[in-house]
C-alpha cells in the first residue's frame, strides 16, 4: 500500500490529510540574522515590492505568497534564504549556543547548517558533512552567500564520520536530518509519491539507523542530538529511534514545539516500539498549512 493511503490508521482526519497533500505550498524564507535583522528584511522586501506574510510560531520566517525568493536585493545580499517552515524546526529544537561544537550530519544544501551558524551568532564550530560532491557545492554556495564563517564542510559518509581533522573532539550537539523518502515534501514536489517504494523506505531506514548511531557516538555525554525527516513512514522515524535507543546510551527527551503536531506512534504494522518514542513529534500538512515533518530530541547518556 502506498502513501498517503498507508497512513490512514495513524492520521486522525485522514481526508483532510489527503487533501492537504494535494495543495501546493507557497515559498517561505528565513531571515539570515548573520547579516540583517527582521526589521531590515521587512523594509528591504517592501522596497523590492515583494509581498510577505509573517509566520506565527517563528519571528524569522515569512511566507511569500506570490514570489520565489531568489530574484531580489535581500536575497542577493544574503539577508534571506529560501527555507520551508518545517525545515526550520530541527535547528530550532537543537538550539545550539554560541561557542559550541555542532555536527550537521547530512548538511547539503545548507539551510539548516546556516541556521545553526546564525543561532550560534557565527561563534563556535559547525562541521557540515555530506557524501555528495554536487550537493556540497550547493552547501558551499549557501554558506558563502549567507556569510557564515564558522562552518567547515567535510565530504564523507556520515556513517563513518571521522573526528580526526578537528583533533578528535566530540560535539556538544548533533543535527541528524537524514536522507528519507520525502513523503512530507509532496506539496512542493508532486513527484514524491511517484518515486516512492517500500523497498526504498526499508533500505534507507538502515542508513538512517547507522547515521543516528554515529551521531550519538560522536556527541559528548549529556549532549543533545536531534533526529528529523520530512516523511511520515514509521520505518524511517520511530523504528529508527527504537533501534538506536536499544543500541546506544541515549534517551528521548521532551521539547516544546509551537506548531500543531501529534506524538510519535508506538506501534506500526505489528511492531511495537520503545514507549518513549511518543516524545517525538509528527507534523502533518493539514495542521499548520506546511509540509510534513518528523522530529525527535535525544540526550546522550551521562
Amino acid at each position, binding site marked *: 500500500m502506498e502513501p498517503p493511503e498507508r497512513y490512514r490508521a495513524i492520521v486522525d482526519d485522514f481526508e483532510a490529510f489527503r487533501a492537504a497533500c494535494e495543495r501546493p505550498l507557497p515559498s517561505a524564507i528565513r531571515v539570515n540574522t548573520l*547579516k*540583517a535583522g527582521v526589521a531590515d528584511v521587512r*523594509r528591504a522586501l517592501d522596497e523590492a515590492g515583494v509581498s510577505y506574510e509573517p509566520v506565527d510560531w517563528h519571528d524569522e520566517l515569512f511566507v511569500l505568497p506570490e514570489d520565489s525568493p531568489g*530574484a531580489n536585493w535581500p536575497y542577493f545580499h544574503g539577508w534571506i534564504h529560501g527555507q520551508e517552515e518545517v525545515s526550520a524546526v530541527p535547528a530550532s529544537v537543537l538550539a545550539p549556543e554560541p561557542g559550541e561544537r555542532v555536527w550537521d550530519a547530512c548538511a547539503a544544501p545548507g539551510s539548516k547548517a546556516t541556521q545553526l551558524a546564525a543561532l550560534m551568532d557565527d561563534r*563556535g564550530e559547525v562541521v557540515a558533512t555530506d557524501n555528495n560532491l554536487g550537493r556540497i557545492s550547493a552547501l558551499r554556495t549557501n554558506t*558563502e*552567500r549567507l556569510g557564515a564563517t564558522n562552518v*567547515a*564542510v567535510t565530504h564523507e559518509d556520515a556513517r563513518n564520520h571521522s573526528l580526526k581533522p578537528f583533533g578528535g573532539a566530540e560535539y556538544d550537539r548533533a543535527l541528524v536530518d537524514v536522507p528519507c523518502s520525502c513523503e512530507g515534501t509532496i506539496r512542493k514536489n508532486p513527484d514524491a509519491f511517484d518515486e516512492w517504494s517500500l523497498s526504498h523506505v526499508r533500505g534507507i531506514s538502515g542508513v538512517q539507523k547507522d547515521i543516528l548511531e554515529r551521531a550519538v557516538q560522536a556527541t559528548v555525554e549529556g549532549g543533545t542530538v536531534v533526529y528529523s525527516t520530512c516523511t511520515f513512514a514509521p520505518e524511517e522515524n520511530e523504528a529508527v529511534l527504537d533501534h538506536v535507543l536499544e543500541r546506544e546510551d541515549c534517551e528521548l527527551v521532551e521539547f516544546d514545539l509551537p506548531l500543531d503536531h501529534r506524538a510519535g506512534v508506538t506501534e506500526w504494522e505489528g511492531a511495537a516500539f520503545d514507549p518513549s518514542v511518543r516524545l517525538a513529534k509528527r507534523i502533518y500538512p493539514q495542521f499548520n498549512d506546511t509540509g510534513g515533518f518528523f522530529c525527535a530530541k535525544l540526550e546522550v547518556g551521562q
Partner: protein
Amino acid sequence: MNDSTKFTRLPASDDDRAEPDRATREAVLDFWETRFGVPPETFDGHTFWERGKGKLWCYRGEPPSPVDVEALGMTFLRTRQEHWKPTLEAVQRFGEHATECVIHLSESEAEAFVAGYDQELDWDGDWGYLVVTHDLAGRREPVGVGLYVYGELRSQVPKGRRRDLDT
C-alpha cells in the same frame, strides 16, 4: 610545500613563515586596513587559511593545521597576483567597515553592476579593486567588488552570482 587539497593556516608574520610565497596574517590585516580602512580588530576571532595557490579563506575557529576538509568558512582573498583581490563574499560580510576605496552606486547603477555590466562612472580615488555599495533598507550595504580602471567600473560579480534585479 603548498598542498592544494588541504587548508594550511597562515603564519602570523614573516618571522614565522616557512613557505616563502604564502601570505601572512599580518599582511592580510594590513591589506584590508591600508586599502579599505577596515580596522584589523574586525578580524579578531578569525583565522586565515590557504588552499591551492593564493586562495585564502576566513574561518571562525582554530582547527589543527593542515586540515583536510572541503571548505573552511568563506573564500576571502586572492593573493599571489599583482593586486590582491577580495571576494564578493568577504566584502558583503566585512565591507561595512570600509571607509576608503568605497564607491556608492545609485539603484540603477547597482542593478547593472549585479547583472555583470561594466559602466563608465566618475571616481577620483585610486584605481583598482573597490568596495561597491548601494542603499538598502536605509543602510549603505556592500554589494561586491568592482575593478575601477580607465574611467570604468568593471563588475567582478562571479557569473553564478549575477542577477537581473531590475524590478
